[in-house]
């Protein structure tokens, strides 16, 4: 029997995917919010004069960056409960996985951006009597943050797509919902096409928002 494209299936599928979209957005937002906090903390630790803090943050980044997210997710959801006897609900596990994973990459973004600020800025801050913390807060960070925006946007898009890997622990996010629909109607072509388009809509929205933010900052003048 020849394949026949059924656009109606796509129209039917779309509303059914919305619950998955909602969960994907929630996981992405919560994960990235926590990931940002972890990233800033670890990024600053990597810049610290204290070698213990530096090594600690360095080890975290290497560990997370050097292993696949899917392995991290399964270890968190299946591995840790086996050792500790503590079951983590899938949604919580998903948020933790995205947070811990994006945190490592954001740490590198933070470190790189802060380091890219000309050393003379630090000296100028110190020369007017600001403490090291004040120099960071008023001089370095605002400039570094502007440089972080494009790579952070990139990370947002990556993390959003990464939530699809949570399918392996049964979180009912977008990809999982798509899978469940196919289990009923067997229309893999139409359903995956729709799922893909929905992801694209979300990532394009992020790109759009970022471009607006970047433009606004540029218009306000200053590097």
């Amino acid at each position, binding site marked *: 029997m020849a394949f026949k494209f059924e656009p109606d299936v796509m129209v039917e599928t779309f509303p059914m995917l919305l619950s998955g979209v909602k969960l994907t957005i929630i996981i992405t937002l919560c994960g990235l919010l926590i990931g940002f906090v972890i990233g800033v903390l670890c990024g600053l630790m990597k810049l610290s004069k204290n070698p213990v803090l530096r090594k600690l943050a360095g080890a975290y980044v290497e560990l997370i960056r050097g292993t696949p997210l899917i392995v991290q997710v399964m270890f968190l959801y299946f591995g840790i409960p086996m050792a500790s006897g503590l079951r983590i609900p899938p949604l919580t596990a998903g948020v933790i996985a995205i947070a811990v994973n994006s945190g490592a990459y954001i740490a590198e973004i933070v470190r790189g951006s802060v380091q890219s600020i*000309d050393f*003379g*800025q630090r*000296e*100028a*801050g*110190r*020369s*007017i*009597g*600001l*403490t090291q913390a*004040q120099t960071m807060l*008023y*001089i370095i960070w*605002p*400039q570094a943050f*502007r440089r972080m925006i494009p790579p952070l946007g990139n990370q947002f898009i990556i993390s959003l797509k990464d939530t699809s890997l949570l399918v392996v622990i049964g979180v009912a996010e977008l990809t999982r919902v798509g899978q469940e629909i196919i289990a009923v109607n067997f229309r893999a072509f139409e359903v995956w096409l729709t799922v893909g388009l929905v992801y694209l809509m979300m990532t394009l929205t992020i790109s759009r928002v970022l471009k607006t933010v970047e433009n606004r900052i540029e218009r306000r*003048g*200053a*590097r």
Partner: protein
Amino acid sequence: MITIKNLHKNFGALEVIKGIDLSIEAGQVVCIIGPSGSGKSTVLRCINRLEELTSGQIVVDGHDLYAADTDINYVRTEAGMVFQQFNLFPHMSVLENVTLGPIKVRGMSRHEANKLGVELLKKVGLQEKAKNYPEQLSGGQKQRVAIARALALKPKVILFDEPTSALDPELVGEVLEVMKKLANEGMTMVVVTHEMDFAREVADRVIFIDKGVIQEDGPPAEVFNNPKNPRLKDFLGKVGHVH
């Protein structure tokens, strides 16, 4: 005002400053000249501890910079610094550049600081640029803002690290003009410079540093017209100032 005793500074295995003794009185304008790599900027940067000395002692306005109980942030406010590359804060307006120190370090109210800031910008001839951002200024204007920023903390001495070296030739004059004005007002100034005419005209004292030591130290007329040290003679010959 500033007393330096037996200053030594190493960068790794390289000894850059090999024992410098120097005493600068309040109100003096001291120009430090010398070939590049002579260590003159390093001496200046040690005076507000942007560079850590290897051994020796530096006392600024009665504060031993390396004493355990010295608040280095406080001492730095007493010794303002003007950099070769201006180092203005690009994300702040000209006025904010000037008022940041008074507000955050001196605890001045924003209103008070703005008044002071406008006054200082007027002094360097840039009051109409208060709301502009550094990138909208010329090099000479940037450096004048940097001078206003240093003045905002009402320092007892201002250190200038080659303040005109990064400027286009036609912009050097406006910066030197502002510096002259400060000198005439009695500000204590230590200026590392290649502007020999400025040193000759404005300085009370010219110090020639080469190979990490002070080779000659005296009033400009003497240093420029009657150099004794062969290295100084050679240096002045190269920069075209033999008389």
